[in-house]
């Protein structure tokens, strides 16, 4: 469904991304992992058309977005959920207005829009009546659910997430991840996550794209990546995740002794 070929991004003579290749089928989840500065967000932005590509192409369902032609703004039928939900919502608008903004290009009538909003809030398990509140009147977890509702109401094929859970408490994270998983199955969506939570990636991803300094260090199925990472960098990252407890089963004291 989504194909990325030889994607490179250069800015001010600096190569931010070099020769990125991957694809994504319907219903799949890809997790992009890597350290800060490795190019995760740049990749997401270039896929969304916010940064022009210097080389390569991105195609989604036959729509091709290519370099250096940047007249087309992003890919159709994609939506994005950001890291900080409060910053992503207009503080002066009621939640329902923010959600309705996703539908401004549709030809739906007011009643249909109201119905779609109700449906979307229901999908993310938010109570009725919350649509009339302002972002300051809801919790962080609820705000992130609103952002997800706003993304799914537009009926995209692919949802992009930039660290969607890292601002939230552990238990809330798990609840929202379950909601996302159910929505994905219901609507046959594909997800692309930027995350540095390897535990999350292991549990929810089908594929892993590991970036290091703007290059693909590893592109693998999730099982293989966590069992036998090919790159030295991947191994180092997994080892660190075991030490920090983001992946279970190894105690630090054993690692120190080894």
């Amino acid at each position, binding site marked *: 469904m989504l194909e990325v070929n030889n994607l490179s991004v250069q800015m001010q003579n600096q190569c931010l991304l070099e020769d990125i290749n991957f694809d994504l089928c319907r219903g799949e989840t890809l997790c992009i992992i890597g350290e800060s500065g490795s190019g995760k967000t740049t990749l997401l932005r270039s896929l969304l058309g916010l940064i022009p590509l210097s080389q390569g192409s991105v195609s989604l369902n036959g729509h091709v977005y290519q370099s250096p032609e940047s007249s087309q703004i992003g890919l159709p039928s994609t939506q994005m959920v950001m890291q900080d939900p409060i910053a992503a919502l207009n503080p002066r608008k009621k939640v329902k207005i923010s959600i309705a903004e996703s539908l401004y290009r549709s030809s739906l009538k007011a009643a249909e829009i109201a119905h779609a909003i109700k449906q979307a809030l229901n999908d993310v398990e938010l109570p009725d009546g919350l649509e009339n509140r302002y972002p300051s009147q809801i919790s*962080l977890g609820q705000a992130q659910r609103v952002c997800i509702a706003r993304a799914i109401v537009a009926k995209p094929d692919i949802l992009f997430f930039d660290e969607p859970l890292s601002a939230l*408490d*552990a238990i809330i994270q798990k609840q929202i991840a379950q909601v996302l998983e159910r929505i994905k199955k219901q609507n046959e969506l594909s997800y692309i996550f930027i995350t540095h939570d390897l*535990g999350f990636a*292991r549990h929810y991803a089908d594929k892993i794209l590991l970036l290091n300094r703007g290059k693909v260090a590893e592109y693998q199925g999730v099982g293989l990546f966590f069992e036998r990472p090919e790159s030295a960098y991947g191994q180092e990252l997994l080892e660190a995740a075991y*030490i920090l*407890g*983001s992946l279970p089963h190894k105690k630090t004291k054993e690692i*120190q002794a080894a």
Partner: protein
Amino acid sequence: MKGKETPPLVELSDLTVTYDGQVLIDSINLDVIAGETLAIVGESGAGKTTLLRSLLGVTSHGFKVSGSLTFKGQQQDLASHRSSDSLVKGSIAYVPQNPSVGLDPLKRLKWQWSQALRGARALKGTLLPKEQGAEEKTFSENILSQLKLKAFDKKYPHQWSRGMQQRLLLAFALIAKPKIIILDEPTSALDPIIAAKALVEVTKVARDHNISVLMVTHDLALATQFADRVAVLSSGKLIEVGMTDEILNSPSDPYTSNLVKHRHWGHAHA
């Protein structure tokens, strides 16, 4: 270290903090034993920062603190507790979450290190900067090499990576020979590979010098990897304190067991 008979190094008794009539910390009793690693775990808003600030005597204006602090057999009333006249002054070192706030961006690192040495000396009462004894010199060089900090050259903070900056702050904390070192969310500003290395190193150095580590974090999985004891904080109350294995295997409070259940991803651990 692990025996409960060891008298505590620092003891907070009946610590209560209110702000504008709101109770932020609700009569907490907590002690830190010499040489142990104690993790304080709590979700956002649990009161972790307020607890730390009261311990250090740096609460902001408007916070009403009550309770008492016991250190080396002496007791101090927390209501009038300020960092400048605190019993724990010079005995607790604090490493901030974000290393760049601990360094002066306009000064060379070497200068900042000399200031830290000077501060450490002032705390020990030997104020003359040139009287650097041989023992002290080896000690500070030891710390630098243990934390794998190489020559400062003529570098400024921004020319070092965040991992290196964090280690330098750890070195600042350690040369004052504190009894306790506080790590405030030690992993959140760092990439995992660097964070793992820094934490393994600092806990090792602390163990070598019998320094207690007080790790404050929202991440229970991280806490249980490093801590001897874990204290669980929620809505200003101390829910549970116990040895790490006890907390993991037989938590006595439903809140704790929920946290334990959700510390990793996946239903296998549920």
